[in-house]
């Protein structure tokens, strides 16, 4: 009896709580100090392409989060079996699998959105964030932390995407989630065309990075 309880205690001591401090950091770090877009400067291409409106940006964020989290889990489960010489191609196969699944589900349930996103969902396959997290994190960590890492990075990506899309849709097209804000307030608003162009997104991402760096006190080291 006593030995059995002792064993259980030992196991309990070893097991980390699901949301330990370290695990929480996996979610919170990518939101700010380790943000995939503004700090790691990954996934910029899609951040410019899908942010003219909030709806596709939102779906894209969810899509990336699902792909990042589920590929992280699968790769983490397989990490001890993957031959290192073909690890990148195995990662790519798993990412592609999830991306195509997401694409198929979108086509079945939200056809309009999938038409709008068209090529960009496919491009998640080559999104550096997903590959980067697989190579840097999932290959050397357990499934649960890897899952959190994927969710965290998806959220970090999504937050920036939503911020950029908010500014672009509001001031470029005068609406939020397709709802004509200025019209509803009785103001005639001439949309700013620059914001709808990729260049506009670049400027907004730049401003976000600027604000974030001045808050975090970032200094370029020479």
């Amino acid at each position, binding site marked *: 009896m006593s030995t059995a309880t002792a064993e259980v205690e030992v196991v309990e001591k070893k097991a980390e709580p699901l949301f330990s401090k370290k695990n929480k950091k996996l979610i919170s770090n990518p939101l700010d100090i380790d943000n995939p877009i503004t700090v790691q400067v990954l996934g910029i291409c899609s951040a410019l392409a899908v942010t003219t409106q909030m709806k596709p940006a939102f779906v894209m964020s969810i899509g990336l989060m699902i792909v990042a989290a589920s590929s992280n889990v699968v790769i983490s489960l397989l990490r001890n*079996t*993957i*031959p*290192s*010489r*073909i690890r990148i*191609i*195995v990662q790519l*196969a*798993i990412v*592609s*699998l999830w991306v*195509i*699944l997401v694409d*198929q*589900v979108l*086509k*079945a*349930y939200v*056809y309009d959105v999938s038409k709008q996103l068209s090529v960009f969902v496919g491009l998640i396959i080559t999104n550096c964030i997903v590959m980067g997290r697989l190579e840097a994190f999932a290959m050397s960590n357990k499934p649960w932390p890897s899952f959190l890492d994927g969710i965290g990075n998806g959220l970090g990506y999504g937050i920036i995407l939503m911020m950029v899309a908010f500014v672009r849709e509001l001031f470029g097209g005068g609406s939020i989630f397709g709802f004509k804000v200025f019209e509803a307030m009785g103001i005639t608003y001439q949309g700013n065309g620059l914001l709808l162009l990729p260049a506009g997104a670049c400027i907004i991402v730049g401003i976000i990075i600027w604000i974030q760096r001045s808050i975090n006190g970032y200094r370029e080291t020479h």
Partner: protein
Amino acid sequence: MRQSNLYIILYAAAITIVCGGALAFASQSLKPLQDANIELERKKNILATVMQLKEGDDVVKLYSSLVKERVIDFQGNIKTGVKASSVIIAEQYKRKPEERLLPIYEFRNQSDTSKIENAVMPVFGYGLWNNIWGFVALKSDLNTVQGVKFEHAGETPGLGARITGDDIQIRYKGKMVFDGDNIRSIVMQKGEGVDYSSDAHKVDGMSGATLTAKGVNNMLKDYFACYENYLKKNQKTLSLNL
């Protein structure tokens, strides 16, 4: 062991089979839903060439009450026993025009069903990079364009892909297919910003997308020729009715 060639080959094969199986399963089980979406999109596009659809309109109900689907041949005769929805335009496109099955979507007058109010023709062709397709609706004279709807698979965003935009499609409204007895089609011009409102067969071009415009022009010319006999036949009965 993990570095041996045999292990690597077996591992790669296993990953391929598992991933392939999962994808095949997903594709098969989601296909009915996806097909339903494509069908709804088709109905929406047909209706949109004739009327302004509002958010929340019941497309399926509107479509079934307003539209009569028919399939005709090159001579303009009605083909019985073929359902318009089962005709795949992309496949018919590969045949010679004389051998194609041609669906036509007629909006009949509610009180007098012998009168066609609008006739919608599907069109299909090749743009700069990939397929383009759409619908052209004609008014009751079967000559004047009521509206068009274009879609594309891979035209350049911001250039050729603009054919899906309302601002481009509205340019076709009121243009004429026939010049007297002959088809003259509607030709999108090179360059943008010219007013062609006085010319019934020309529309303003898309700057930077001349090749896509060429594809659209060929597509329209090709399909107007396919439907020529049908249009002429019905124009005759129309004038008899008057």
